[in-house]
């Protein structure tokens, strides 16, 4: 199959799955005898939001590299905005925050666009790490200084650095895989998100034992095992999108799913500490951008480096 035919097949499959989900949601809503059921309404809101997200991602893909870089730059912007909103910063952080949004974020994505691996992989961990505390120190406010600079740095790492490793997949030079990099992004996003969805479905259907009651009351052992196993099988079945063999694709999917699950736990711990259930309200039924991206954040850099180490020239 040509890359175009693969892309069309892939999107046809996604549209089919979403149509099925919408149909199930419609039937459940009709069968809810005693008035509207909140769980079913949330399910339908989520499915509706998925349609929008698939349309947006599809539009970005059709624009090629530029579209994908801009899409993830905006996702980073929304994620960082949510993260900083819930971070107790002070007036003395104003310049450092302005620099994070208006200097560090655009530069990181420009470096991705320019495919400058040597700089985009250290720009935030080294240069932003050194620059931002300097800017904060110049303002002279020492109250909770280390807390504040550490939290801003963490926000940048999670929302910008890690998220940018999704479009960075386009910069990898994989022999025999020329012109098909968007499909590698599709593989990562599809596996991560289907893992989230499948864990949710398995949990709703069979969930009994809470897996991390202190962090996330909705995550169960049954949801975790069923979701990760089925999303790993799905990843293996999607090997034809990737430069991997079927078993390599399944192993990659397993790693993506485990990192995604653990990332979800970490982000839940932060939300718990801040006393909120969701990061924001941007995506109906899902919460904020970070609620949708939390597992991508932890899976993307590891997937990027494994692919780079084992599969590039």
């Amino acid at each position, binding site marked *: 199959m040509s890359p175009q035919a693969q892309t069309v097949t892939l999107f046809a499959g996604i549209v089919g799955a979403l149509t099925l989900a919408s149909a199930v949601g419609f039937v459940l809503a009709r069968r809810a005898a005693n008035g509207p059921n909140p769980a079913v309404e949330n399910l339908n809101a989520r499915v509706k939001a998925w349609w929008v997200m698939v349309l947006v991602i599809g539009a970005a893909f059709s624009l090629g590299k530029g579209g994908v870089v801009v899409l993830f730059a905006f996702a980073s912007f929304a994620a*960082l905005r949510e993260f900083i909103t819930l971070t107790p910063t002070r007036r003395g952080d*104003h310049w450092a925050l302005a620099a994070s*949004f208006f200097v560090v974020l655009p530069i990181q994505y420009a470096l991705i666009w320019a495919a400058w691996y040597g700089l985009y992989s250290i720009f935030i961990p080294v240069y932003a790490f050194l620059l931002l505390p300097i800017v904060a120190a110049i303002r002279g406010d020492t109250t909770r200084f280390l807390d504040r600079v550490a939290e801003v740095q963490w926000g940048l790492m999670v929302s910008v650095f890690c998220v940018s490793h999704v479009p960075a997949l386009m910069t990898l030079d994989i022999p025999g895989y020329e012109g098909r990099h968007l499909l590698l992004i599709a593989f990562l996003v599809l596996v991560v998100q289907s893992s989230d969805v499948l864990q949710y479905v398995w949990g709703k259907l069979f969930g009994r034992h809470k897996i991390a009651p202190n962090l996330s009351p909705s995550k169960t052992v049954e949801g975790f095992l069923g979701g990760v196993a089925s999303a790993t099988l799905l990843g293996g079945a999607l090997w034809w999108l990737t430069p991997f063999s079927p078993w390599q694709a399944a192993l990659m999917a397993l790693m993506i799913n485990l990192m995604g699950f653990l990332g979800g736990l970490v982000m839940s711990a932060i939300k718990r500490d801040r006393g909120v259930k969701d990061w924001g309200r941007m995506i109906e039924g899902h919460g904020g951008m970070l609620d949708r991206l939390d597992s991508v954040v932890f899976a993307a850099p590891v997937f990027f480096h494994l692919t780079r180490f084992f599969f590039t020239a």
Partner: protein
Amino acid sequence: MIRALAAQIFARAVTVFARLLTGVRPDWRGCLPESRQRVYFANHASHGDFVLIWTVLPPALRRITRPVAGADYWAKGAMRRFIGERVFRAVLIDRVAVEHTRDPLAVMGESLAAGDSLIIFPEGTRNTTEAPLLSFRSGLYHLARAWPGVEFVPVWIDNISRVMPKGELLPIPLLCSVTFGTPLVLRTDEGKDEFLERARDALLALAPGKRRDA
């Protein structure tokens, strides 16, 4: 004609920018966005305050709602005058009593008599303290007494002070929200302090996390 068009384009640009920056969402908790005559009274921490209220009002309400602002700031310079008078159709009042050329209550009354709704900040000045809300000036009470048919709606604006703290030039993107509470009406036997206290409590009750330590 050209000025009116420029004002419209500018107004549109301001709301788009405010949404991009703050993702602001209205929470109509205590009333609905209906075209009744109202005085929205809000907490004041930043110049962006009334822009946020203005942005989340449906266009039909936006057209009949005018912010009340200090003439000392908004009458200065051609650009500010254009923004204040043409874009936001602000009702400009003299804030400093000794310089009163016209009684602020009379100026606001004229606008209410013309059928407009108003946005006012009863703290009188921007709050830059750690306290969530300063004490109210008495204007709110006098308006309520003079205009018994008008609804007084408390409006809590959250987080805008972090977007653009006093003295900073560059706004940073943070999520903001605007919460509309239940309208108040002055009770027949209610005194000034009593009403102002009730209005202040109603506004504080809308603050997230119910920060009532003031």
